[in-house]
Structure formats: C-alpha cells, structure tokens
C-alpha cells in the first residue's frame, strides 16, 4: 500500500462521497427533472475521479459526452414527453422489484469487495506511475488516440458500422409510420 498525499486523499473522498450521495438521490427522486440533475452531479464527480487517476482525457470526455450531450438529450425527452411533474408518472416499481434491485446491488457490492481482496498477478500489473508517465510522454489525447487508430483500428471501424445500423434502424421506424398513416 503506497502512501498518498493528504491533498489527493481529501479530494478522492470528497468526489467519491459526492458521487455516491448524488447517485442515491438520483434513484430516490420522484421528479424526473431533479433525478436527471442529480445524475449530472454524479457524472461530474466521476469526471473528477478520472482526472485523479491520470486519465484527464477520459475526464473531459465524460463531462462533454455524458454530463453534456447525453443529459441534454435526456432532458429534452423528458420535456417532450411532458413528464415534468412527479404526479404525472405512476411509479411502476413495486416493492418486490425494489427489493430485488437492492439485492442485486448488494451482490455487486460484495463482488467488488471479494475481487479487490484477490491478489493481482505480478507479471500483469503495471508499476505505479506508469499512466502518469505515459500522459507526460504522449500527451493526454495521444495516449488514447495512438492505440485507438493503430492496435484497435478494426474495432473502431466496426463501431461505425454499428452506428450506421442504428441510424438506419431509427430512420426506418420513424419513416414508416408516416407511410402507414398516409394509407
């Protein structure tokens, strides 16, 4: 167990607690809009944790994509469906489902504890500070972009086919309804 400076430890607990508290508030709010806002707060805290893990690029992307783009779309959907008031949506989650979800959550928590206690193999672990050095050498973006466009170019390109299939699919469903209505 290496020693972390107090500054680091303080911020880890600060953002960690904010993330957990916001996540709990997120699942317990009845109004969709405030739930969405707490989710934004969770996303921001996670972004801070990524930065502390020497992954500033991932942190920035987290803010841009999740806290920014996706949450804005989310709020648009809530507004378009007019779900602003809590009274308008019936809570479909019954007591049994909540219990089951809680049990799954506990199981996952227990799993994480069990896994952190299992020792990692020495040959497969990186020396501490490897990530920080790599960020210094290649730059925060280069460290992600390098492997993405060399080693993992094939999966990257397949992703574009996946997105194409998703776009064609959504257009097809949206477009066909008009054709059917016109009939």
């Amino acid at each position, binding site marked *: 167990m290496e020693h972390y400076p107090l500054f680091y430890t303080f911020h880890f607990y600060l953002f960690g607690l904010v993330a957990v508290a916001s996540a709990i508030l997120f699942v317990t709010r009845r109004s969709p809009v405030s739930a969405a806002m707490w989710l934004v707060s969770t996303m921001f805290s996670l972004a801070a944790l990524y930065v502390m893990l020497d992954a500033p690029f991932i942190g920035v992307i987290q803010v841009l994509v999740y806290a920014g783009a996706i949450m804005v779309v989310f709020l648009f959907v809530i507004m378009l469906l007019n779900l602003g008031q809590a009274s308008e949506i019936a809570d479909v989650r019954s007591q049994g489902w909540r219990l089951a979800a809680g049990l799954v959550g506990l199981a996952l928590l227990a799993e994480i504890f069990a896994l952190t206690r299992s020792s990692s*193999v020495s040959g497969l672990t990186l020396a501490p500070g490897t990530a920080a050095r790599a960020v210094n050498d290649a730059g925060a973006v280069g460290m992600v972009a390098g492997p993405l466009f060399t080693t993992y170019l094939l999966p990257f390109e397949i992703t574009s086919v*996946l997105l194409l299939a998703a776009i*064609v699919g959504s*257009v*097809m*469903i949206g477009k066909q309804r008009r054709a*059917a209505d016109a009939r």
Partner: protein
Amino acid sequence: MNFMTPLDLSIPSQLTIALAPDLLLMGGAMILLLWAAWRPEGVRHQRTIGTACIALIALTAVVIGWFIYRNATATQGPIAVDRFRWIADLVLLLATAGTIALSMDYNEREGMMAPEAHVLILLASSGMMLLAAARDLMVVFLGIETMSVATYVLAGMNRRSPRAAESAMKYFLLGAFSTAFLLYGMALVYGATGATNISVIGDRAVQYGLTGSPLLLTGVALMIVGFGFKVAAAPFHMWAPDVYEGAPTPITAYMAAAVKAAAFAAFLRIWYEAFTPVYPSWHNAIWWLAAVTMAVGNIVALRQRDLKRLLAYSSIAHAGYLLVALTVNSAAGSEAFLFYAFVYTIATLGSFAVVVALGEAGERSLNVDDYAGLWTVRPWLAIAMAVFMLALLGFPVFGGAGFFAKWYVLKAALQVPSPHWKLAVVLVLTSVVSAGYYLYVVMVMFMRPRLAGAVVPARSRGLTGFVIAASAVLLIALGFFPERLVRLTRGSAPLSALSVPAASSSVPLPLTRPADR
C-alpha cells in the same frame, strides 16, 4: 494471391484481405442503402433492392468459397482465418438470403413499404460474420451489438401491429440487459488477464496460473449468463417465445436460425480457444445449462398450439443440443456443431417459410389446427413441412440430414476420453419427448380432416415457394450424402493449442504462438 504462407494480420493490407468477405458485404450494403433511399418507394423498387441484396450475398459466398478453396490461414490477430469461420459464414449467409427472399414476399402481402429493411438485414449479417470471425472480445462485442441493434428494429418493423411493437420492446430491453452481463464479464476477464485477444487470454491463464483466479472465473460466469440470453438457453430463455411470436415471421426465422447460429459460433470459439485452460471450472455450468435447456425447451413445447410459439420452444431445445457440442470441448465437438448448425438453420428457415406461406395477411392462421388436412389441399406444402418437422426431430431418412446432425453430436459427446454418458442420455430422452409435438404437427396435417369453413390457403408466392422447396430438397439430399458436409467441416476446430481433451480427429493446430501485445 498466394496463401502458402499465413496472412500476417499485423500488416493492414493483409488484414484487409482476411476481411475481404466482410468488407464486401458491408460496402455493398452501404451502396444498396443509397440506392434504396434514392428512388421513390414502390413495390417494384422494394423487390429490386431485395434481389440486389441476394445477389450481393451470393457474391460474398463466392469469395468465401475461394478462401476455402485456397485454404487460407493467418497468424493470430483480432480475427480468425480458418475453416470454422468460413463454414459458419456460409450458414449465416444461407439463412440471410432465405430471410430476404421471404421478406420480399411477406412485406408486400402485409403492405409494408421499407426497401431499407432488406439492407438492414445485410448489416445485421455483417455483424454476424464478424462474430464468426472474432478472435478478440472487442470484435465479439461489436459484432453482437451490430447484429442485435439491427434485429431489434427488424422485429418492430411492422408499425401497425401492437404485438410487433411489444416484441421489439421486449427484445430490446432484454437484449440490452444481457449485453450488460456479457460486457461486465468481458471486463472482468480483461482485468484478470490484461488481454482481449482470446488466444492470448488462454495463454496467459496458463502462463500466470490464473485458472483459479476469482476475477477470471466471475468473468466467465457472467459471460455464460450473457451468451445464455443471446442463444436463448434455459433458464435465460423467457423472452424468446414472446419475441418470436410478435415479430414478422421472416424476421422470426432470421432470429431463430441466423442470430442463434452467429451467437453460438462466437460462444464456441471463445470457450474453445480462451477458456479451455479453465475447462474444469465451467464444464459443470455448461453441462447443466445444456441439460436444463433440452428438458425445458422440449417439455414446454408439448403444450404449445401456436405454431410460432411451438417453433420458438423448439429452437430453445435445439440450443440445448448445440450446447452439448460446446460442453464436449473437442475437435469432434466443433465439427458436430457446424454440421448441426447447418442442418438446424435450413430446417428452421424452411418451417418458418411454411408458416409465412400459410399465414394470411395480418398473420392469422398460425394455430396448429389451421394446418388440419393440409395434405388434401396443398399436398406439396404438407410434405415439405413434414420433412422440416422430421429433420428437427432427427428422424432417419425422411428427416434427411437431421438424423445425422444429432448422431454426430452424440458421437462427439461419447468419443472424448471421459464420455458424457448422462448428457447423451438426456439428449436422446428429450429427443423422444420432442416427437410429441413434431409428429403431432405431421399427424394433424395428414390425418385430420380439414376444419369446416377453413379457407383453402392461397398458392404460395414464388420466392416463398422456392425457399421451401430448396430447403426440403437440400435436407433430403444431405441426408443421403452427409459425408459431403462432413468433409467440408473436417479440420475446422478453433481449438487452442493448449487444448486438453482433444479427440482422435487430426486437427492442424496453430504452430505459431502469438507475441504478447
């Protein structure tokens, strides 16, 4: 091109050659997509696009045939270049071509105007071909997602049918749920071994003594759950009957035949190549999965009277038989798997084609009772359906190659050093149970009188008729010459060189081991 030396997949140009069939299908699909959107919608345009799609599939199959003929091999990389991939590709392309042919007739009858649906089927198939080829967990995941996303939409293609919407929604939610399991499992496996390439995972598991690592084993367990959902193995099969019932029938055929075969191909390759070192840990889990799936699928199918639901449970049962081939973990097991997948795909496609032919507009007349006395009004259709039912049952001679498919799986299960006697007994017993519903359909068609007031089904349209006839003839022909297909599948096992209980069959194992990434 010279294939005497293996393709070096770390060189981009050679990787491109190895991906030629996939790239051809994807590129062709994109051009067809533009063409589909270019012209105003119309019945003729839809038919033209469908025909072009089938032509593209034929072209891809020719390219694959050329790769088989030249016996291409490759060094270990993100994708595999081996017989297993090519044969699985041919199975998938056959199912895709059949599905597009059926949808061309079906969409016209149901008044659905969506030429891009045919192209979406092609995109799903390119995801499937990646699954058959994938040797990297990332490619597996992206292949599964490409396939699934397209299929979710296809299931809900008919916007006027509330049942189709329910089917698509259920399929989407449970598909996303199962993908989460799969992805979590993959992440844990990556965490344990530090690799996504499946042969590197296998190597490292041995090299670093990870066979007892809780991280790796939890990952394997979660991946079993994920794949269990994807191939509809009990107890993860609950979604299948509802989804299969609500989706348009050609798409149901596609889900039961191609989607299942593709998911199984990736399932088998990962378990054979990456997880052979931890075989003792997962053997029992897959053993029980196979046994429970065979039992549940066949027993529940006995109570079904809706033909689409009946075939859905039948496809669950067949997932169990295919899991037996996976449990065996030998070269013979993988060869039996390919043979079985080939025969099962043709028989499933054929039987759903009959359902398409007999279902009138709006998907009525799908009850088994509507088939009563079919022999008296549409004798050829009745004979073809009987062939498909008997093939799925595994009946000798009249069921064509269906008998040999089950026979080879049984043989593979019993030929390994520690024979799986109990599993073989379960397989035989549940097959006997399955006679209860397969033969019931045959009996109803041939021996019951036609219901009073039942309309005589219209003559099946050209393409549907062709799919039915071709499937039946192919099944019977393979029943007389099974060795043709056996020769094609021989030496196709994607076995890891570290493999434990390999059977007698001579398999050219990869001689080069991958350099660590």
